[in-house]
């Protein structure tokens, strides 16, 4: 029965060793999928390379479906799985700021680490910018505080928001994903190739 660490099946002294191993696999998969290149990542916004959409959507579906089955088979106590709380206003404004950051910088935090690791100077600068951004945020926190704490809906799940069951929701996501993959591959073929 999982999750293993919260239930004490693996001692917490293993926590950091596991963190390094999982991070290692995460970095390896991202880099091998092409996420260390900002121009490859930005392709999703111009239609010349949809690798981000394909990898992220596939990964989300595999993990969603996996958690559903693990829970169904009694392998994991889904109530112990962390659900990031929804602070509606803060989430939306944060997402918009990150979106502008994405199209401007070409990376997100995890992918910038990958780019930096293989020698991309732009990725290193992006990472440095992130440190400054977080410092600015904490300095200016009184300004952000009411937004940061407003609209707290707790650990809300999409199934509660939409009022449908988890299996049905995941099924719908898969139904949407398949034609989406087909369409973006068609678009990719039509859009002029960009060399990078």
């Amino acid at each position: 029965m999982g999750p293993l660490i919260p239930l004490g099946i693996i001692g917490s002294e293993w926590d950091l060793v596991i963190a390094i191993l999982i991070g290692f696999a995460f970095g390896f998969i991202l880099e091998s999928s092409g996420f260390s290149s900002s121009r490859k990542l930005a392709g999703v916004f111009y239609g010349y390379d949809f690798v981000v959409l394909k990898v992220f959507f596939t990964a989300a579906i595999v993990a969603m479906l996996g958690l559903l089955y693990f829970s169904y088979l009694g392998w994991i106590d889904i109530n112990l799985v962390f659900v990031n709380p929804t602070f509606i206003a803060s989430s939306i404004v944060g997402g918009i700021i990150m979106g502008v950051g994405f199209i401007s910088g070409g990376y997100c935090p995890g992918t910038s680490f990958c780019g930096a690791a293989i020698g991309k100077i732009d990725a290193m600068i992006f990472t440095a910018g992130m440190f400054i951004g977080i410092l600015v945020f904490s300095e200016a926190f009184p300004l952000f505080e009411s937004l940061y704490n407003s609209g707290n809906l707790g650990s809300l799940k999409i199934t509660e928001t939409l009022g449908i069951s988890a299996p049905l929701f995941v099924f719908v996501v898969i139904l949407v994903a398949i034609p989406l993959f087909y369409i973006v591959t068609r678009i990719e073929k039509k859009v002029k190739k960009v060399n990078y």
Partner: protein
Amino acid sequence: MKSNQKERSKKYFNPYFGGVLLGLLLLLTFYITGRGLGASGAVKSTVVAAVHTVTPDFAEQSHYLSKFISDDNHPMNNWLVFETLGILAGAFLSGALSGRLKLKVEHSPKITSKRRLIFAAMGGLLFGIGSQLGRGCTSGAALSGMASLATSGFIAMITIFGTAFVFAYLFRKNWI
């Protein structure tokens, strides 16, 4: 030999193969730790630790930073910091195996390195601020959030990618 190397350096995973691997890793992470993957949290912990070391009083008085300081648990002794060290090592190994290790500024031929670096710094800065408001970035809030069916995960995914898409036209010279 040279062309062989060039061919090798282009070889990325098939995106669906990469996606399945990433999904299985995310599932394993949930199974072991009860939480998903993350990235921006490690930077936050580093900022907290750095400010706490340089100016402890300031960090303790800061309404934001003080949330993440506790006596028995040093902020650097944090799951995501170690995970990020792993990310750097894993990405480095993958790049080394595929012949992609190279110190360079990657940018469109239409713009200068300087312009690329200015926009990269700006992007990082915005991601730093946005990821605090969003309580996580593309990894922690969006991907892991969607996998755990958190409503915040779907909001993060839609707002991050939607906004980038809306502004793509303005930034097109930088990329295409």
